[in-house]
């Protein structure tokens, strides 16, 4: 099944909340050379920056401990190298934690290559004139509230980290497909000028970056798009050859399905212009890509194209933007919807009477219109859950929403049940700017001796 001149790059996580077990199964049974954990959502780095400001040892992905504890014995034993952005806002701290996990597992002194330089917060402090991509306003408008600023680094610096020979590579912000492209560049000596190969590798990275999304996760539909044994769905890998040929497969014996349909959904996922998917490594064009079922659970990817990368890095700027407060309570039986609507009006009036105001406010009838709105044309369900949420800079106002919703038990229409505790969360908003690559100092430091 697997030829010797291919390198096999496995996908072990597509978000920090991803399932753990399929990554271990992939390491144990997938015959992989690399295991990549992609664990950073848009605002994760901001959140971890706040953790680090409270405790300088923290700020890496908290899931690092559980993931590495689980897979390290297998990966070290089999010589599977780990690549991950679980370093988040503190890659050096993450490296120390990883080395400690290895030592605790009796695996000895494991070197970790650390990718640094994505944190550009001190650099952009002096670049208030940069324009926010989302609204064209100057960066200056959010600088006072800035928590973090991180450039999406590319595969080149991750590749450099792999050159050190360290069994583990940890980074902060790196573009998702780049984490997968880096092992290919390292193994085969691909340069950014080898555009057809960089294109193929980037397409493969994009297919792998959401793990089970190519193996039947986020896909199944009973009777229409059945997925066998979805409860045990496996994680995918790419078999890559030096010439850029790519076949996507998954853990042998695992559940789920991997075919042209699942791969097509993932290939288009989160792409805007399909002729210009911009990564730090290239501008990928998927408009000629062909996906072919080569064998059961094996899909070949051909004809990816790319143009040279842009001269800028995308930088995510995280900033504090007030609070979101919310509350929920349920109504059931006769006139459930009418009572829920009345309750919502009462809460709104009580909030207003107390002088609370909100930048944004929302009323959902869960079971009816919370996902797609249009309450007027939806059929009435037997029971409905009222949800009210608002965003504000005033923490008290945010808390009052859930407080007043809960108080409907005693002070609202009849038969309210099951209110939740008032919820308040900090809003970590994210906007982005483009920064010339020449201003960013991406570099590699090795902790321990490779």
């Amino acid at each position, binding site marked *: 099944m697997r030829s010797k001149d291919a390198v096999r790059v496995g996908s072990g996580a597509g978000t920090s909340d991803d399932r753990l077990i399929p990554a271990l199964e992939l390491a144990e049974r997938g015959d992989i050379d690399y295991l990549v954990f992609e664990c950073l959502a*848009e*605002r994760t780095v901001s959140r971890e920056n706040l953790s680090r400001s409270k405790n300088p040892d923290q700020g890496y992905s908290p899931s690092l401990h559980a993931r590495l504890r689980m897979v390290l014995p297998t990966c070290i034993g089999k010589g599977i190298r780990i690549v991950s952005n679980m370093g988040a806002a503190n890659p050096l701290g993450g490296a120390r934690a990883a080395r400690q996990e290895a030592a605790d597992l009796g695996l000895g002194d494991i070197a970790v290559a650390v990718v640094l330089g994505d944190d550009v917060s001190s650099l952009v402090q002096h670049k208030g004139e940069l324009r926010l991509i*989302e609204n064209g306003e100057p960066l200056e408008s959010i600088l006072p509230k800035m928590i973090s600023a991180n450039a999406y680094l590319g595969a080149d610096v991750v590749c450099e980290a792999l050159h050190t020979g360290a069994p583990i590579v940890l980074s902060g912000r790196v573009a998702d497909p780049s984490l997968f492209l880096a092992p290919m560049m390292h193994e085969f000596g691909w340069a950014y000028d080898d555009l057809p190969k960089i294109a193929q590798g980037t397409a493969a990275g994009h297919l792998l970056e959401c793990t089970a999304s190519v193996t039947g996760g*986020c*896909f199944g*539909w009973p009777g*229409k*798009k059945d997925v066998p044994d979805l409860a045990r769905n496996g994680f995918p890998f790419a078999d890559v050859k030096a010439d850029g040929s790519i076949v996507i497969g998954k853990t042998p014996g695992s559940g789920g399905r991997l075919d042209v*349909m699942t791969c*097509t*959904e*993932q*290939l*288009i*996922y*989160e*792409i*805007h*212009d*399909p*002729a210009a998917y911009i990564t730090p490594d290239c501008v990928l064009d*998927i*408009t*000629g*890509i*062909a*996906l072919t079922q080569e064998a059961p659970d094996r899909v070949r990817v051909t*004809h990816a194209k790319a143009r040279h990368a842009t001269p800028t890095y995308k930088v995510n700027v995280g900033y504090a*933007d007030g609070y*979101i407060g*919310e509350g929920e309570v349920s109504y059931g039986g006769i006139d459930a919807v009418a009572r829920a609507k009345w309750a919502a009006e009462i809460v709104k009036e009580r909030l207003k009477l107390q002088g609370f105001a909100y930048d*944004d*406010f*929302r009323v*959902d009838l*869960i079971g009816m219109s*919370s*996902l*797609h*709105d*249009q309450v007027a044309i939806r059929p009435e369900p037997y029971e409905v859950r009222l*949800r009210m*949420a*608002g*965003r504000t800079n005033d923490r008290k106002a945010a808390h009052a929403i859930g407080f007043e919703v809960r108080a409907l038990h005693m002070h609202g229409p009849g038969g309210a049940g099951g209110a939740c505790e008032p919820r308040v969360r900090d*809003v*970590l*908003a*994210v906007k*982005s700017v483009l920064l010339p690559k020449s201003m960013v100092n991406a570099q590699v430091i090795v902790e321990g001796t490779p």
Partner: protein
Amino acid sequence: MSVRVYDLAHSRAGDKGNTSNISVICYDASHWEFLERELTAERVADAFRHLAKGPVRRYPLRNLKAFNFVIENALGGGVTVSLAQDIHGKSYSNVMLAIELPDPK
């Protein structure tokens, strides 16, 4: 008589900032021309009018017997600030699948 997008295609939604992208992928390549004719950006914008300000752009992907719809101003300001339950708009693919089109036969 009419068909739903659901009858001819599958779909998945993704998010970037305040923009939703929704794929429409034919089960059978022979339906691609019909969808190219009927499932216009305008029709999709109309179906999402109550959820998204737009604009809506459509990218044909004949090689994948698919289309990519990019819908701007669709996610309550984006995943980090949205008050919605489904902050990513993952369920939006089901609004797409429910769109009714004239019967192709």
